[in-house]
């Protein structure tokens, strides 16, 4: 009567395991396997089952998955870099040099940099693939819009990270890039309509009060810009992109699973 149970089986039926993973031990039936997915906050974002032909590499290029994989790499390597990098004019550049030359595994910074380049490429290719396979069509049109926001956030993460080494390339690239914000209609000091918001000689949209100022924290690039970009790069944008990513993955399941070849 008393059969000797294996260690794995006893673990799977023990209280610790069953309290974390609902569904009664090792899933045996198709229904139980489905319940494992649905009962996990992480796995439930993902479809329960995938049609075999839908995950053909030729069809998906795996670009969405690779983008997410690179996002994880960037998050982990980025957090590691934060332990050494100080976002001030005095230290930013030398800390980057330090990270490459003195800190163990100087490749960490390169992983973060090349991973960022790769993620921009995979996100674009993912968008291209979704367009070419028509996967943006109803009922997936909302998820396409979410994807466009994710693309924008990826580019903004790339842009804000660009400044952090605080070398000549970074400073002038962000000078040029942030000058675009001057031309924002109504909100940029040199944009169309900015002159309308004035009383007599007094302009309300000036270099010290326009949208570019909010971005760079000054009339010109400086300490405030570095700090703003650092906070946006490490906290603000990752926070927002993770919310949209959760919606994006969840909607794939809600919109009828991954799109399949016609």
């Amino acid at each position, binding site marked *: 009567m008393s059969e000797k149970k294996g260690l794995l089986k006893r673990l799977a039926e023990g209280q610790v395991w069953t309290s974390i993973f609902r569904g009664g031990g090792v899933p045996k039936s198709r229904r139980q396997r489905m319940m494992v997915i649905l009962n996990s906050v992480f796995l439930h974002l993902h479809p329960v089952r995938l049609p075999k032909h839908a995950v053909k590499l030729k069809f998906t290029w795996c670009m969405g998955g690779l983008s997410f994989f690179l996002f994880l790499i960037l998050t982990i390597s980025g957090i590691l870099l934060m332990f050494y990098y100080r976002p001030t004019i005095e230290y930013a550049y030398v800390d980057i040099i330090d990270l490459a030359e003195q800190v163990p595994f100087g490749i960490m910074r390169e992983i973060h940099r090349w991973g960022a380049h790769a993620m921009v490429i995979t996100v674009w290719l993912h968008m291209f693939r979704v367009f070419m396979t028509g996967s943006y069509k109803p009922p997936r049109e909302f998820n396409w819009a979410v994807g466009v926001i994710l693309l924008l956030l990826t580019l903004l993460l790339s842009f804000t990270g660009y400044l952090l080494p605080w070398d000549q390339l970074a400073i*002038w690239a962000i*000078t*040029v890039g942030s*000058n675009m914000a001057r031309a924002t209609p109504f909100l940029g000091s040199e944009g169309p309509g900015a002159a309308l918001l004035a009383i007599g000689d007094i302009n309300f949209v000036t270099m*010290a*009060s326009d949208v570019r*100022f*909010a971005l760079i*924290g*000054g*009339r*010109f690039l*400086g*300490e*405030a810009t570095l700090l703003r970009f650092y906070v946006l790069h490490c906290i603000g944008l990752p926070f927002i992109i993770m919310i949209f990513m959760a919606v994006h993955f969840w909607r794939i399941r809600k919109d009828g699973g991954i799109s399949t070849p016609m």
Partner: protein
Amino acid sequence: MPEANKKKSVAVPPASPPPAALGKTNAGSEVTRRSFFSWLSIGWIAFVAATGGFFTMMLRFFYPNVLFEPVQTFRAGYPEDYQVGEVDLRWKGKYGTWVVRESEGIYALSTVCTHLGCTPNWLSAEQKFKCPCHGSGFRKTGINFEGPAPRPLERFRIVLADDGQIIVDKTKKFQQEKGQWVDPEAFLKV
């Protein structure tokens, strides 16, 4: 009496009953459908106002009251401090201004390239400003002649103070393409 009170909510009854929150329910404090909706709308209006107020605060938060930047208007010494025919670089780093002395007078050029906003270098051998970012070139006057820059460099307001010192005022710009360089404050005659 309770009916009259309901209609004129402004008038406080002389002996008001204890608030319903104390747990004593009576017929007068019963939540009606109408009062529920009016409280609901007041609640929503308060919520939207509080949220809107907070977002306004968030926006304003990004515009500090004090900027730790060099001032916009500065004294640039006396006209005799500048050599005729020279482009003076001493205010370039701090104030983003080149002061150029010609035989008839002095003008202050902005160091911001009119293409995309980098800072050009003054090449005295070639007598031109050359931008390292995309190769725009400007004559000593600020007129663009090569590269992608679409218009000349801007000039700042330049006047003499009472003590004879030069004052450069960066808040007022003069653009050649708008015909503003003929303005007496764009060129200090000495």
